[in-house]
Every structure is written in C-alpha cells, then in structure tokens.
C-alpha cells in the first residue's frame, strides 16, 4: 500500500465534497468538485483506492497545488 496526495490543479472554491474518509474510490472518480473560472471541476483519484483524509471543506478557497485528498492505493 502506498499513500498518494491529490492536489488541486487550479485555484478556486470547494463546491462539493462527495466522499468521506474510509470510502473506496475508483480511478478517475470525483471526490471533490471545485468551482473555478465559472466551471465545475472534479478532483479525481488517478488510481483505485481508499480515502485516508480529506483536507478541504465546502466553500473553502484553495490554491493551485494545495493537497485536497490523501488516498491509500
């Protein structure tokens, strides 16, 4: 098992948090949806795994490169 950090590709607001720690995720499955530049942008896991930690809350503003989720893969 390895832990990977999923970072935000863009500065924006956290619109929805769709998953919780302990949930399973598939590759490319949305975990958080950001709102930036008038677009709804999903934050996804590149690999199948289990969510270890979600580091953002809804309505929070985060910067490009900020760690959003940690996933055990």
């Amino acid at each position, binding site marked *: 098992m*390895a832990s*990977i950090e999923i970072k*935000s*590709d*863009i*500065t924006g607001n956290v619109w929805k948090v769709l998953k919780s720690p302990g949930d399973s995720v598939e590759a*490319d499955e949305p975990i958080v949806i950001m709102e*930036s*530049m*008038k*677009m*709804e*942008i*999903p934050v*996804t896991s*590149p690999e199948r795994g289990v969510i270890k930690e979600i580091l953002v809350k809804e309505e929070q503003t985060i*910067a*490009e*490169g900020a760690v959003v989720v940690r996933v055990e893969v």
Partner: protein
Amino acid sequence: MGGTDKLAKRKSRGQLNAQERLDCLVDPGSFIEIGLLGASGVFKEDEKRTPRDGKLVGFAKIDGRDIALVVNDFTVAGASTSATNSKKMAHARRTATEKGMPFVHVGESTGARLPDAMGSRGMGSLLGNDPTQFRRSRETPWAAAALDTAFGSSAWLCCCSDFAVMRKGSIMAVSSPRLVSMAIGEQVDLEELGGWRIHADFTGLIDRFTDTDVEAMQEIRTFLSYMPSHNMELPPAREPAPDATQDQEAILDILPEKRTQVYDMRKIVEIVVDRGSMFELKPRFGRAAVTALARLGGKPVGVIANNPLVGAGALSIDAVRKIIDFQVLCDSFNIPLLRLIDTPGFVVGKDAERKGAPGWIMNMMNATSFVTVPCITVIVRKAYGRAYVAMGGGRHNDEMIAWPSAEVSFMDPTFATTIVHGVKPGEPGFEAALAQIRKNDEVWDMATIFSVQNIIKPRETRDYLIRMFDVYRSRRGAGVGKHLLQNWPTSY
C-alpha cells in the same frame, strides 16, 4: 549470461532475463547479434566473468522493420557500463543513426562499472570519449525501457529517448539509494527516489507504465508502429479495420451543452480517431493536456488536446512541457498534428509565476512556431488569449476549423464584462453587457473574415480530417518536414 544461479534467482522472483526480454520484443528469429565475444578488457581476471560484457547487442526486426538494440544483462556485473560494452552500444547507436533505423534500449543497470571507472586513468578511459553519445538529433526514433533497477545509462537513455516505458516496481534514478544516502546523509526510500509514481506524476520522464516486462516490450512495439524508421520517410500507414469508424454522433453525448460543465476530452479523441488506435503518452503528467499517437484512416497522427476535466483545461507548466515534448516528437518524425482546443488560458497565479510561467509559455510558442508537419486545429469550445495561439490557433496551423460550440476571445466573457464595461456580476447592466460579449465570442464572425477556415459539425470532423490531412500530407517534400525541432533538449 551470468550463470545458472543468478538466472534461477531471477526466475524465482518472477523477473525475465535479458534473452527472455529480447524474445518478447522482436520478431521471432530476427535477432542477429554483434559483440558476442566482447568482455571486460580492463582487468584480465574479469574477462571470463563478463560474457558479452553484460549487454546483448545487435539488430532485429519489429513488425518486419529493422531496429538496432541493446538489452542489458543484469546478471553480468549489473550490466554496468564498461569500456567494451560502451563500444558495443556506440556501434549500435551509430549504425541506427547512419543507416536509418530505430534504436531500442532495454535498461536494467547499476551505472558505471567500478573500479574500472575510478581514478583519472579510469575516467580518462571510460567516460566522455564519445562526443556523439548524447548528441540527440532525432534522425531515428529511440525507445527505452526502465526495468527493475535503472541507474546510470538506463536512466540517461530513457531521458534521451522519444519514448520510455517503465514496469511498475522498477526504479529509475541517477544513482542508487545507498549512494544518495551517503552523499546527502539521510535515508532515501527507493520508491520516493525514482519509483513509477514519481515519474508518472512529477517528472514526466516516462511515457507509459506497465505491470509486467512482457507488456513493457509490447509497448515499445506499439510505439514504433506509429514511427517511420527514420526522419526522411513517412510513418507507416496500415489498412484501417472495417470497424475503424465509430458512431460520430456519440461525440455529442460527451460534449456538454452547458458551458460551465467539464468533460473528458480523451473520450472525444477516442471517438474521432480509428477505433482502438489512441496511444496516450504521459497520461498522469500535466493532465490538463492530452498527448496521444493515433491513426486516422489508418495513417498515424499526433493529437494534442486540452482536457477540461482537469483544472478546466487551463494549461499548467507541466502541461506545457508535455505539449512541447510531443510537438518535438511529431515534427521530428513527420507525424501530422491534430490539435483540439478547449482552454480558458494558462494557469495564472503566484505559484505559476514563481515557476517561470512566462518563460514556459514562450517556450511553447517557440516550439509551436517551429512545427513544419501538417497541422489541423479544431476549436471545440473555449479558445482564449495566448493559450489559444500556443495551442495552434491563428496561423499556427495549415487549416483551422471550429465546432458551433466554439467561443473565441481574449478572455472569459464574465471577466471581460467587468473589465470592459466596469460592472461586476449582480450590478445593474451586467447581464445585458455579458450577453453582448458572449454573442461576440461566437465563432461565426471569425469565419466571416476567414480567420477560421470552416465551421463544421462534430460528427463531420473525422471525415474532414482524413480528407484534409491527405491534402497536406504528401506535397513537394513528400510529407517530410523540415525538422526544425529535432535538436530541442530531451528534457528540461
């Protein structure tokens, strides 16, 4: 090879040996070896312990076409680089370049051979005596694999190559964790030093990742199937399969009607190109851009596309680097480029500026301007500002078409409304001003002044591309470009 004990150990660990890897890579019975009797020539006592001096070298065929290749034999002195095997490798590389065939390196090695390379005599004998060793001019395609332990030459050749594949569980790094720990005084984890995720997500130095050696060898075969043998010929065409054309109406199932919704551009590319022909490079690196080799009507093309699914398709520095690399590849080997634009611009902000965003954007513009292979640009949706030009907009193409969903402007209409009209969202007059700006962003005006050559429906795109690439593919130069990017740095 290095003896039955070492070979048995590899087998028990599920590792293929050099001969088995070679057998997976090339057409059966096509290998002709050079340097079978080569062995270490530095210390007499090493001669018998170093059969082939640790490297299987020779010529073979892949899909009936000649290649030159080196397959490292780790069971012999860790396939370390020595005086004799350096000459063997140089012979294969030189022949590939001069005669015009791909060069393939299957890497698993420890680095320079010690103690041979120690001291001034060792350095004087072993390192730096071939000034062409890393003079990468892309006359022929190079492909490399990083398997198990890829230090030294195995890492260098992955970085110098046009295509690199890594088996998961392997390590590619400058040198071993032990040496790194001694140098910097701290313990270094093998995976964190050069594991596959490091290269997939952070370095972008490796193009594809596999679970097995067999798959890694197949990836090299697949990559070369899109490549010409050398830069003075066209890449090989093949008869498209009867079911190569997919239902083009399905594009509309993916492209959202709402401009605020994102989608996965890779799915659109998969539909437009020949069924099953999309071969994506660096899929986890700079993901706001997609770079893929593919076929249209059986003929190879390179695809560069924004992916709105990732950061709305805004181009990060990693995405820029990936696109530049891919333009270099396609321009060097006469592969026409298809670009699909849907980007709100480059990633901006303090972080991007600190990474030197303006310099990277100009690198991309520079590379885009140097491309001489046939280029067709399709504006799918958003095409804003400098990113639109860098993505092959304006006159940086042979033909540019747009889908009716295209919107072209200097910036997003919401921001433009505030800047041009001085009103913010929610303030009186904002909605009316926004509506006018949106109307102006529609692509019809651009077609009226012939700055876009056509507006076509998504479902018509595949047929258009097949026909139009034929118009541009084989003219005076017989499809061979000027290769203005062939000496671009291999990584930077």
